[in-house]
């Protein structure tokens, strides 16, 4: 494995589904997708619902296989479940019968890390996200934001070089969302994994990413790529005041809007300022 290998590489990837067991027609979810994520790079995938963004993450995690084309992780073809990446799913997917610390230790446990070290590493990250005092609470006793923090540190605690995140902040309220975005930037800068980040939120994509890939409607193809050159570390809470933000936002929104417009019949006089 050469050091110059991209962390993740998609090469002419196609993915077709049979949505239901008796569906007559397969659905083409991804069409000719090619892109790379470099080591330490934060890449966001944005695009209309159902455009196959999440499918891309499942492909890197090896939970599903491409119908054609090649998905590589660190220069090696992904085949079967890829335990060398971290995957933060949309639902927090915490085990309800395990306490917070038990959940954070889960990956380390599966990886055979001895108990004292598990405890130490879990506690360290629980501290970083301000959850000390809640280690022995069960998931249903935690708020949505706390559960989300738990599911993020649970994945980051075992230090993979690639982290996949599928709309991790989707269901949260606006304030918690921004706070967690800032915490994520903070956590990411500690170990600098490559991140593939799926989101609908363009502000979030700009605030966090080095690069943003815009997908078209289904079948998802890559419409455009944007480089986000805002200096780091970024002030997430005032990201929209950063010079260069609005131009980028407007360009992204124009792309997305064209895709939404293509999916739905245009309404007479509809106009986005």
């Amino acid at each position: 494995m050469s050091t110059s290998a991209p962390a993740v590489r998609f090469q002419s990837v196609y993915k077709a589904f049979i949505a239901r067991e008796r569906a007559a027609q397969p659905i083409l979810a991804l069409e000719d997708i090619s892109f790379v994520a470099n080591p330490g790079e934060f890449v966001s995938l944005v695009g209309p619902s159902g455009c196959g963004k999440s499918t891309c993450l499942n492909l890197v995690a090896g939970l599903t296989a491409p119908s054609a084309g090649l998905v590589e992780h660190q220069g090696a073809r992904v085949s079967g479940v890829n335990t060398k990446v971290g995957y933060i799913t949309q639902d927090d997917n915490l085990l309800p019968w395990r306490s917070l610390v038990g959940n954070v230790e889960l990956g380390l446990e599966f990886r055979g890390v001895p108990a004292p070290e598990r405890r130490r590493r879990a506690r360290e990250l629980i501290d970083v996200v301000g959850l000390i005092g809640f280690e022995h609470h069960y998931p249903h006793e935690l708020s949505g934001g706390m559960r989300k923090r738990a599911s993020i540190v649970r994945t980051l605690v075992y230090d993979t070089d690639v982290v996949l995140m599928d709309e991790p902040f989707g269901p949260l309220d606006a304030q918690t969302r921004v706070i967690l975005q800032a915490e994520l930037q903070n956590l990411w800068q500690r170990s600098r994994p490559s991140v593939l980040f799926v989101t609908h939120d363009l502000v979030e994509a700009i605030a966090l990413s080095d690069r943003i890939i815009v997908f078209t409607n289904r079948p998802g193809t890559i419409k455009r790529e944007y480089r986000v050159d805002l200096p780091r570390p970024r002030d997430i809470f005032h990201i929209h005041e950063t010079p260069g933000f609005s131009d980028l936002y407007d360009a992204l929104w124009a792309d997305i809007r064209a895709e939404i417009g293509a999916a739905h019949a245009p309404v007479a006089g509809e106009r986005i300022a």
Partner: protein
Amino acid sequence: MGLGNGARVTAVGERIALPRPPADAAVRVLEDTLTRRQATLRARRRTVWLARLGILVGVIVAWELSSGTLVRTFFVSRPEAVAARLVEWTLNGDLFWHGQFTLTATFIGYMVGALAAILLAWPLGLMPRAYRVAEPYILLAYSIPAVALGPVFILWFGLELLPKIILAAYFVFFVVFINTVAGFRQVPRGLIDVSLVMGASRAALFRTVILPSAVPYVLAALRATLPAAMIGAVVGEFIASNRGLGYLASAAASEYETDGVIAAAFVMAVIVLALTVLLRPLGRVTRWQRGVDVSEGSL
């Protein structure tokens, strides 16, 4: 405003730390709220029990008044006759002597049925394709009215305890089986996927994800089926027996002693009720299950 980076962000996170201790006035408000709440709950509990008692008394009074006036006593007996029968059976030891056989068949049948169900559901719940093969046969077996099979069981297994145990086990088996399979199959796909990506081996996946997720389903079924075991045992005694509470009822019925039938049915109902209450904690054993929704049987 340099808010937003590094340590500052963590400081924002501290908003979710435990709340500060409240001032005196607030403490009083909290205490009053608690006291009022407890009083309300006590009053509510008292009302519920009074209503229950009222219904019981109402039914007995209505029974007493209608027997011999609206309905012939021959059909419905009278409360005092049933009570007298219960006292008689208690004093002469019939109740305990017959009861022990019914309870023995109930417990052994329950254990056998539940154990067999779990041991069979375990592999089938984990192998969806094998389950699909087996499913129609299991549903077919479940659809057989067990009462209809009773006489055959007597033929095969004799007149003693064995056919009663088997009937009791039969009544337990399917509910536990179906619930256990459901428990293994309902494990959210997301939990399994995330665990696999985290590096779980098959054994670790089973131990840390699938089994704990299925346990509440199994416990709910175990709780719901103890009364069913007793019904199975009593059905067996009804078909052919010379002892047991079911025999006591059927013997009274063959003599047209309505009070005996009602007394025996009453004893069985009380036992089932007691067993149900006794097993109630089995449905919710641990703290994590509070707030977790587990669908369960009707009991």
